[in-house]
């Protein structure tokens, strides 16, 4: 479903204060759009006008071209998923009943509801058989939030509104939930409008970012573009001085690793002598060492090998190294490099097979493409 805001306005005190001011915007279907800005910028007001928890005072909201006024308010809300900061789980209902609220309002047959609830609990990584009859008081903060997300998806809405859904959770669990949420969205491809004041969250989750201030849009575009090219000093300060690093956080290793690495297989080059010969031929100071099925064992350096006896077994000379996986982000790769004091980091798959290499120089190149706004 496509949602279009046309000159959307919310005025208070007979127009003396405009929380949202002539805002026009089209939310792209199946994309996650983040609304972000300082508190009081009108982001939550925009969200609540879309499901009519707040009535607009001017402009229009169009769902696939149809004005919001032509849609019954109650029906509209039942077709839009809604998740909020304090979760708002109903404490007197168990997990099953909480998730089943909207399907029951829509009078789904009970059998369909049951299979839907199970499906959703699995989607948000909660075991249906363990959790469905638990009450909110018996769940941890993170579990409650997962139920909140599952509930917003319950009736399979095309549009989901989320108002800081991960706001009330400790940083470690928030990180986990965000990762899980990225995976979920990759599967379900909903049109999601997501309000947050956490710029890291915005960059991490958003396909698109809307930066708001004083009820107006300051900048709207693909997240990468906004991070790369902040339109003005306000956007740049909102993104923060470390926006470049935050940008690395949203980029995945799988899109950026190189495969021109050097590796030695211990099954072929069993001795130090053979390995030395190989390295000297290739004129490289070091190489990764792999074993059976290309599994990464570590690395060896020319310098170290020269100190050893030619007939020593290579397997005794391997040094351990930290690695990243394709779904890791580039920020994690930098951290691994810093930890191991190296300027590169191997990339392995879940079976530890060596796939490629991330070099520090690549990261520097990416970062240097970011533009700076003169203040």
């Amino acid at each position: 479903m496509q949602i279009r805001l046309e000159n959307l306005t919310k005025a208070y005190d007979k127009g003396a204060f405009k929380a949202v001011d002539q805002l026009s915007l089209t939310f792209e279907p199946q994309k996650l759009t983040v609304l972000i800005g300082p508190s009081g910028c009108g982001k939550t007001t925009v969200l609540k006008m879309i499901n009519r928890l707040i009535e607009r005072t001017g402009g229009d909201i169009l769902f696939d071209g149809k004005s919001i006024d032509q849609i019954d308010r109650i029906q509209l809300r039942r077709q839009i998923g809604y998740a909020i900061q304090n979760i708002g789980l109903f404490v007197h209902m168990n997990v099953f009943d909480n998730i089943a609220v909207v399907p029951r309002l829509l009078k789904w047959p009970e059998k369909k509801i049951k299979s839907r609830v199970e499906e959703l609990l699995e989607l948000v990584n909660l075991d249906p058989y363990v959790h469905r009859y638990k009450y909110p008081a018996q769940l941890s903060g993170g579990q409650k939030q997962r139920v909140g997300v599952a509930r917003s998806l319950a009736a399979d809405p095309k549009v989901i509104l989320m108002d800081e859904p991960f706001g009330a959770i400790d940083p470690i669990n928030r990180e986990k939930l965000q990762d899980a949420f990225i995976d979920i969205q990759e599967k379900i491809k909903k049109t999601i409008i997501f309000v947050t004041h956490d710029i890291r969250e915005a960059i991490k989750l958003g396909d698109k970012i809307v930066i708001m201030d004083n009820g107006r849009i300051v900048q709207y575009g693909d997240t990468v573009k906004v991070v790369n090219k902040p339109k003005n000093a306000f956007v740049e300060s909102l993104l923060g001085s470390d926006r470049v690093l935050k940008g690395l956080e949203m980029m995945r290793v799988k899109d950026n690793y190189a495969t021109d690495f050097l590796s030695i297989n211990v099954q072929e080059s069993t001795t130090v002598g053979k390995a030395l010969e190989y390295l000297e031929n290739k004129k490289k100071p070091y190489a990764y060492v792999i074993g059976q099925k290309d599994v990464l064992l570590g690395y060896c350096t020319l310098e170290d090998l020269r100190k050893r006896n030619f007939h020593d077994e290579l397997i005794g000379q391997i040094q351990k190294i930290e690695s990243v996986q394709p779904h890791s982000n580039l920020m994690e790769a930098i951290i691994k490099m810093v930890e191991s004091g190296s300027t590169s980091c191997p990339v392995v798959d879940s079976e530890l097979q060596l796939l490629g290499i991330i070099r520090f120089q690549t990261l520097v190149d990416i970062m240097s493409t970011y533009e700076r706004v003169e203040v």
Partner: protein
Amino acid sequence: MAFFEYLFENGERVVFEFLRHLQIIGIALPVAIMIAVPIGVAISNHPKTANVVLYLASILMTIPSLALFGLMVVLLAPFGAGIGIPPAVITIVVYSMLPIIRNTLVAIRGVDLATVEAAMGMGMTRLQILFKIRLPLAIPIIMAGLRNAAVMGVSVTTIAYLVGARGLGYFIFSGLSRSRLIMVLVGAVLVGVLGIGMNYGLLKLEELLTPKGVKLSRKKE
């Protein structure tokens, strides 16, 4: 020993008056709930009206019960109901207004805003929010108000003996007029037992009616 002697000798009478006492409260409380809970719900959205209603209800409570009974006798006489059970029931209903309305109001208003907003955002109608969200969450506090009213009802009913409603007041007032202290003692003890029993019974009922999830979340706090 004289206490039990009296109790056994007048067993039939004791049982009769005890049941009559219960009967009066048993009629009055449901009526009070049916009037006070809807009022509490209705005014929960209108703070100004709520203040006026609570003010009126607390004025009603300041009227001495004896005066109220006198008033009832006069007002109900034209309908031939000036004495007996009707004035007693009506008086208890009047006194129950404040605790039940007040607790309903507090309970309904006290429901977490995020919870209500989530319910609205999910497309519940006002009535659905009231019956599926607000009332189930409000049960424990409404029940506390009801217990308040019930215990008060037990003592007020004692005085209702004076308008011919009978009940345990018989032992106390007859005992006083005949200077038979043992009768007064029996009456007082039975009224006490009934009050405590009533409170306990309603507490159990509250336990039964309160949704499990609410109990669990209260335990956690």
